[in-house]
């Protein structure tokens, strides 16, 4: 299935800003993050189709996935 992935801020370093990723059906956001080699501990916020998501959320064909580093708070 095709997932449009955008990596925000420092996450794009060494990877890409945006890309279409073809992942096995049934993949979760967490599995896709692992596949991309980003490291779950580098991810602060996961947004799927403009809604908050978790590492466990299953992805579907055509989903838009955006990942942010954890830069908020203090």
């Amino acid at each position, binding site marked *: 299935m095709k997932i449009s992935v*955008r990596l*925000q*801020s*420092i996450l794009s*370093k060494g990877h890409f800003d945006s890309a279409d990723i073809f992942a096995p059906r049934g993949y979760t956001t967490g599995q896709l993050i692992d596949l991309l080699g980003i490291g*779950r*501990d*580098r*991810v*602060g*916020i*996961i*947004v799927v189709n*403009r*809604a*908050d998501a*978790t*590492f*466990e959320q299953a992805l579907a064909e055509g989903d838009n996935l*955006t990942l*942010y*580093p*954890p*830069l*908020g*708070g*203090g």
Partner: protein
Amino acid sequence: MPFGYNGKILHVDLGTGSWRVDTPPEDWYRRYMGGSNFASYFLLNEVTPETDPLGPDNPLILAGSVVTGAPLSGYSRYTAAARSPLTGAFGESEAGGYWGPELKFAGFDAVVIRGRSPRPVYLWINDGDVEIRDAAAHWGKDNWQAQEGIKAELGRKKAKVLSIGPAGENLVLTANIMNNLEHANGRCGLGAVMGSKNLKAVAVEGSAKPEYADPDKVREIARWHNARIKAHPPNIILRNQGTSYLVRALNDAGMLPTKNFKHGVFSGFEGITWDAYEKIFHSSHTCYACTVRCKRRVEAGGPYPLNKNWGGPEFEAIGAMGSLTCVNNIAAVARANQLCNLLGLDVIAAGCAVAFAMECFENAVLTKADFDGRDMHFGDAGGMLWLIEQIALRRGIGDTLALGVKTAAEIIGGGAEKYAFHIKGSELPLHDGRGKTGMALGYAVSSTGADHIETPHDVAFAGEGIAKLHPLGLLEPVEPTVTDAAKTRFFVTGQKAWGINNVLGLCNFASVPIGAMTFEKLVEAVRAITGWDTSLYEIALASERSMTLSRMFNVRMGFDAADDRLIRRWHQPMPEGPLKGKCITEQELAEALELYYGMMGWDEKGRPTRAKLIELGLDWLAGEAAR
């Protein structure tokens, strides 16, 4: 009986040794809701420009909210407030832990403390009873000894005690108020206000939890929230690493304040990340009813001994006493943090003072003679620990640094002001405005001076933004490092979202938008707790009141738009790293401030207008407003 709160405010006069209990009407509670707004209300009712922040007429307010103590993650925070002796402006600082809920269970929604006791005392509030007790045995003791001593004296192991250490007693203007040794009302020098009243501590214990309008609904939301916290990425990181995760994340992004705010990248960062922290990690801990568990306890022997009861450093402490001073040893940073907790010093201000002294030393503005014959180079952990103690005990150069970096620089002279970084006289939390320009705008306009808790952090603005802000109408993305009209629009609304947390006493790490909560569920929770048919609109209005009220306080104290400024280093290009070349120009800041004032209903000098005050139901202040 109201739901969720007591309907009782305790007023104590330490000068006469008397107290009274007020019962404000429901409308008062609904208009102000809690925390920051309760504080502003009392301060604006009695503080004038002539009020000495360390005099008996400066009231100290300790306030929860209508929802504090509800059995939900992140509902534990309370506000401490007074006119700040550090800045002369509005002084407010929140702390989590267990004290805020316990005050509620002891029968009061807030305590207002006036006057000055002729001798050291502490307050004991127990199930509606109030006692002013002699504190001679506890005066001069550090926070750990004092809190344990007071609990033993009362025979109440479960009492919750907030106290000041030697720094507060010595009227150090950056002294904090600690509850346990893990939770601090850190900012604005409120510990010195307590010290000026001869008030060592406030102990509370209560057995009467308030009733909730719909207890089943409260429990249902708690279950939903806690399940979501388990799966929510920001909360997973907080549970695993505490706030220390920010060291690597901010350094990677080129915005970890380093070497007194000059750099955004710290070459020694690996010595203060979670990987290093794990070696001194003892256990994780939490605040009342909270499943986020971001608190750390530390333990170690060796050159930097650490006690598991004295708190582990959170990000602000690690940044202030790590990267800002170029100390790359987490055990030394943790030791400095524990010293601050014991002595009662704000970790942010302490780290900023040390970094200021180090830069003065490296530029020959201060010399070995100022430091009892020792060097004070960046990176000197031993020097930092020594200096922290000097400040708290007001010895030697510490007596000058105890006044905050702004006043210290004026006293030291010789160009020291070039290295003294503050906004409105308040030292800066550890976030670089060149990487978070919206947060920089927040630093500039905050009534308390630089403040990272009432301000949106810019990651929320990028890409698609945090989806949870959509209910506020924040739909379009804006770039983190850009300062323009779109960023200002985003900031104005975002500030109201963050402000909700300071009014209701909620923790950013559990609430909206960083934590697992959503606005929809937050409103449901307030409705279920209080029984009010409230809405996000009404709660956001209360949040806007808090910005306008604290601004009105500062207007009365003589502050205006000229005080809404940034540090000069953020107007200069970032020297290296991913943000190399980034800065906020003075022109960009001026344009953003003009827009911000307009959007807030303030005039060009940053003064709330009569129309805005009346719109917010603050007619009682309209006479003081700009036309």
